[in-house]
């Protein structure tokens, strides 16, 4: 809008009549600052062009090609997709990723909400509460995983097993047991991420108008009914968003299985992202860039469809 006023001024002001509407020639474009504007956009265009847009396009192209760094590139149609879909490891990985996502929802979805509602009612030193909740988020993830890996030590003098020993339990195998390895990963991941969600909920809680609580009180509502009929409906929008963001995030879990277990024991923590990494970069498989891109495109497509359906279905919920 603001661009238009100088344009109009130029069109009106010029005294020589022979040029009634000097429309955008390169010269006028430069004179009006078009070149300067473009120069300011150069960093964005170069960086996004080379490191974001081009790779996205390339990824789609590569999923139809057989490539490695040495041999010639050949188009193979849908072979990569067929190869990936026929890989029995894929279905293990999909099952494990879904399992991770479900566990992460069970552990990780309610905890930040409860914590945030409680923290928002703290009157003194609320900053201390939220800082403590957020602290694990700033610990470098690699440090967190390596530290927890030590905590999970399976011996009787492992950190967690010592605590279990006080209660007369354990020692548990944690990461060495195919049944408990994934829950152990999820526990660490929840610890590492919950603080970020708490902060988001706290911001949303601060936006709940006090009048609504007062109105509920006039209607005779106690604390629980206020939580149920005012707080939660008010948070519905942000709760719906964090839900789908968490699904999208957990579908791409990599660091925990990669550093904790490398996909083991017995493939029980092999996830989709770990499989993509293995296709492309692992020393044993390795270099199958076509399969890796095909799988990552499929993952992105599934997530896109899922988010679209989710938004569609929940649209009416958050509006009411």
């Amino acid at each position: 809008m603001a661009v238009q006023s100088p344009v109009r001024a130029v069109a009106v002001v010029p005294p020589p009549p022979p040029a009634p509407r000097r429309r955008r020639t390169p010269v006028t474009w430069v004179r009006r600052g078009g070149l300067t504007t473009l120069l300011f956009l150069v960093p964005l265009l170069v960086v996004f062009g080379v490191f974001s847009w081009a790779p996205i396009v390339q990824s789609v192209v590569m999923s139809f090609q057989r490539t490695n760094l040495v041999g010639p590139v050949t188009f193979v149609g849908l072979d990569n997709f067929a190869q990936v879909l026929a890989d029995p490891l894929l279905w293990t990985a999909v099952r494990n990723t879904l399992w991770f996502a479900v566990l992460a929802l069970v552990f990780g979805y309610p905890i930040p909400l409860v914590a945030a509602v409680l923290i928002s009612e703290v009157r003194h030193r609320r900053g201390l509460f939220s800082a403590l909740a957020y602290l694990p988020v700033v610990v470098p993830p690699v440090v967190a995983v390596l530290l927890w890996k030590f905590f999970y030590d399976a011996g009787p003098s492992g950190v967690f097993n010592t605590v279990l020993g006080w209660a007369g339990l354990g020692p548990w195998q944690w990461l060495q047991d195919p049944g408990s390895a994934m829950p152990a990963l999820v526990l660490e991941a929840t610890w590492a991420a919950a603080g970020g969600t708490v902060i988001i909920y706290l911001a949303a809680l601060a936006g709940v108008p006090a009048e609504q609580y007062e109105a509920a009180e006039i209607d005779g509502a106690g604390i629980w009914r206020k939580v149920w009929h005012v707080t939660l409906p008010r948070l519905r929008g942000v709760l719906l968003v964090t839900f789908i963001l968490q699904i999208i995030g957990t579908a791409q879990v990599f660091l925990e299985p990669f550093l904790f277990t490398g996909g083991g024991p017995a493939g029980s923590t092999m996830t989709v992202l770990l499989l993509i990494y293995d296709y492309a970069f692992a020393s044993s498989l390795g270099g199958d860039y076509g399969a890796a891109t095909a799988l990552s495109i499929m993952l992105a497509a599934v997530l896109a469809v899922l988010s679209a359906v989710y938004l569609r279905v929940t649209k009416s919920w958050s509006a009411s």
Partner: protein
Amino acid sequence: MKRGLISPSERATPAIRRTLRAVQGVLLGALLLTGLGPMLWLAKAAVTPTQDTLRAPLAIFPTGVDLANLLTAWTRVEIDKYFLNTVVIAAGSWLVQLVVATTAGYALAILRPRYGGLVTAVVLGTLFVPSIVLLVPLYLTVVRSGMINTFWAVWLPAGASAFNVVLVQRFFANLPREVLEAARVDGAGPARVFWSVVLPLSRPILGVVSVFAVVASWKDFLWPLLVLPDSAVQPLSVRLPALQRYVELDVFLAALAISSVIPVALFLVFQRLFLQSGALEGAVKG
């Protein structure tokens, strides 16, 4: 102070007040245990001899303190070198992100070319593409261009952050236009307005972007692992898992502690910024 869920009269009720106090006490205890506990344990273990940590991990200094761990980690295990690499990588990523976000934000929010909407749309579009899709082609780009084992391979891709561009663009769009207009009337060109007016007015948002950039770079693992295979240029996050195999436990834990110091210190100093912009991240993602 604004009231919340619990009304002042409810707070005055003894039963509610007692319950509330108990619940908050439990909450504080749980937060101390989970939030601070692991970090305190790591700090303790960093200066405890290996045998003590192995035999009684939860005992506090059963046979005394061993400060030499930190020194050994810093010098003999060359944590100093990887620490420096991490700092250089973070600084470069920070600079690239700041340059891209501010110049683009200025062009899109203040200079506003006709094609600005298109550029914004294509930048926003990248938010919907999971980064895993980029991984292999981006890696091949880096290999082909010879950037492998150079810091450029980490610095430049870091600049392609749509989140930063959106944040800065929104902030710039809300700057008081009279001030920019006044500078223009005084004869300042677009570059001068950018450097002497817009940037100084934008310290708050530049602070947010800077903190995010440094912390994200410090946390990054997979990308530097791929493009920096030579251990001489690796950051801490990439080097630590490899160190675990041949370094003694107490020194390894000391190395973990050293690696967490900077991000945790940044958080303690800029707490308000972190907690506010953490919520901001949620708002933009939503």
